[in-house]
């Protein structure tokens, strides 16, 4: 049992004195919490299938360099976030009506209150590590009624071994709308570990479209927590492309705190070789009349391993909830593994909540149909495998990104000889 607080990377951490005092307090508290947490093992329930993939955390240091990234979506705002921190001067050059971008170090103590308040929801080892160690963070605020048309792209860049802990806080005021894309550009080297944390506060009638993509890897490790707090009639839509690496873990936590909010969570997961991806999602229906819809599709090939743990928690006041969760999985090899666990916890009596999880092979009726049109067995299977995930990719609202994802998946799922 190794306490998280005894990790070298934690002990070596130097508090950034430029951070507002409230944030410094938050960070000190998180560091104290680390002494109550241990490095997860397979006996840690929510790390059951992934703990052995964590690698040797005692070797981590937090001194990674940055790399430059290239634009992948046109007419977008690009922001690089790395171990070196956030370039506040570059942020100030971005001019977009209704959009405010700031580094944590630029905040006054008053500006921090929501960040501190929402930290109450934090949990989990990787999230605590992020809170204890981040050097700086990014604040994205969208003013009331502002609709930011161009996507805001966050490049989390890391080009060598070490731990990076990017931190983002997004706030949409009433009826605001924005699209945020998290792009992880991590060098595929042993000991590279990125553990991000993003919290979004979505105001009344506001809408956040959230996309997340990480590269395929064999050596780097990636962890991340995304938390969305929805106010009245708020809308949260997420599309996540999960490509496997040595260890990949994403926790998505949605809290529907006021009436009439809606969330839609889509995830496509593909792993090959010895890769891994573990998604833990939790949708908490706290207020009444909210709806949630979740679709995750996973494909595991070779010796890879996918975990899906999806939880819907309906609190006692959340009457008239509509919740739907669907997880479908395809195993392409006998030695691949997928562990899926849908969980429903319902304390209200007037709700409609459904979940379904399947693990299987391709539908032979569909294979037959395609073959009657002249496709070979291999072509038919390849087309159906790709189609299985493209159904969700086609729902990605940025057409050029959807095309890139389709291209990536086409290459990834083209059959071997």
């Amino acid at each position, binding site marked *: 049992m190794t306490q998280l607080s005894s990790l070298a990377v934690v002990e070596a951490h130097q508090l950034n004195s430029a951070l507002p005092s409230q944030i410094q307090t938050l960070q000190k508290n998180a560091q104290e919490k680390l002494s109550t947490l241990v490095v997860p093992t397979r006996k840690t329930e929510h790390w059951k299938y992934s703990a052995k993939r964590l690698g040797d955390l005692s070797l981590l240091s937090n001194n990674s360099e940055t790399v430059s990234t290239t634009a992948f979506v046109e007419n977008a705002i690009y922001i690089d976030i790395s171990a070196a921190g956030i370039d506040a001067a570059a942020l100030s050059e971005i001019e977009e009506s209704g959009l405010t971008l700031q580094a944590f170090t630029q905040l006054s103590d008053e500006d921090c209150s929501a960040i501190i308040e929402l930290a109450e929801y934090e949990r989990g080892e990787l999230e605590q590590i992020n809170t204890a160690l981040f050097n700086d963070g990014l604040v994205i605020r969208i003013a009331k009624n502002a609709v930011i048309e161009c996507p805001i792209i966050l490049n989390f860049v890391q080009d060598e071994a070490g731990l990076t802990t990017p931190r983002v806080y997004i706030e949409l005021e009433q009826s605001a709308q924005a699209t945020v894309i998290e792009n992880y550009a991590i060098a595929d080297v042993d000991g590279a570990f990125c553990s991000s944390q993003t919290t979004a506060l979505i105001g009344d009638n506001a809408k956040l479209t959230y996309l997340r993509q990480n590269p395929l890897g064999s050596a780097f490790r990636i962890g991340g927590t995304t938390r969305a707090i929805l106010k009245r009639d708020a809308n949260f839509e997420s599309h996540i492309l999960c490509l496997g690496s040595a260890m990949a873990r994403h926790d998505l936590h949605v809290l529907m705190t006021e009436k009439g909010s809606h969330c839609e969570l889509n995830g496509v997961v593909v792993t090959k070789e010895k890769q891994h991806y573990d998604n833990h999602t939790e949708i908490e229906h706290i207020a009444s009349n909210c709806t949630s819809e979740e679709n995750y599709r996973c494909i595991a090939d070779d010796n890879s391993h996918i975990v899906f743990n999806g939880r819907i928690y309906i609190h006692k006041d959340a009457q008239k909830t509509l919740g739907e969760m669907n997880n479908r999985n395809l195993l392409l090899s006998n030695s691949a593994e997928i562990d899926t666990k849908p969980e429903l916890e319902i304390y209200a009596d007037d709700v409609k909540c459904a979940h379904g999880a399947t693990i299987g092979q391709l*539908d032979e*009726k*569909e294979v*037959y*149909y*395609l*073959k*009657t*049109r*002249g*496709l*070979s*067995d291999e*072509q038919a299977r390849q*087309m*159906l495998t*790709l*189609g*299985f*995930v*493209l*159904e969700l990719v*086609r729902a990605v609202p940025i057409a050029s990104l959807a095309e890139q994802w389709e291209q990536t998946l086409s290459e990834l799922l083209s059959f071997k000889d």
Partner: protein
Amino acid sequence: MLDIKDLQASVEEKQILKGLNLEVKLGEVHAIMGPNGSGKSTLSQVLAGNQAYEVNGGTVTFNGQDLLDMSIEDRAREGVFLAFQYPVEIPGVSNLQFLRTAINNIRQHRGEGEINAAEFMKQAKAKIQQVNLDPSFLKRGVNEGFSGGEKKRNEIMQMLMLEPSLAILDETDSGLDIDALRVVADGVNALRSPDRAVVMVTHYQRLLDYIVPDYVHVLAGGKIIKSGGKELALELEEKGYGWLGLEDNAESEA
């Protein structure tokens, strides 16, 4: 072109076809009618190569080759097309992508090069309009969210694109309103030519008002028990299958 001799086939150990004989020559249109459970769909599926059906006797020769010995995809590439009674929905696989792969496979089989992308789009747009479907259907998943009638029209659209030499229509008319039925019939009539043949399997005489067959056969109990010209269909319509001493047994539909 198609010569079926003493064909026997079973599904889940139940014998459905019990010695079926049928000869179809180039340029001909044959209608196969019969009560439910007579083996109409089984015949269609066996010809397309569905492995859920076991052939346990007889021969099928197609253009001089043993059809039963060919893989499903080779039958298609040689020109056999089955319009399904219940086409499957395949979300995620777009109509366009799938059709283009199908056409290129057939072309390759004939020793031709891949179809030019612009030419393919031109043809696809023309054919989708021919079956009265919106061109936006091309980009959608195969039959994804299509109504029953739209699925049938999509089958005909595929048939028009693939230009088979033998088209088998498995109850393509069932469940269609009169407008859709006309669209389907127009599609089949457009394909009629001296170097193609059509086998229509149907329960109702109605379709034959729009696609006039050269021959009508009555299939019952796994065999063809009566053959004649188009007037046989009218006689069946008038007198019912009871006239031939047959019960319309829906429960044993295979």
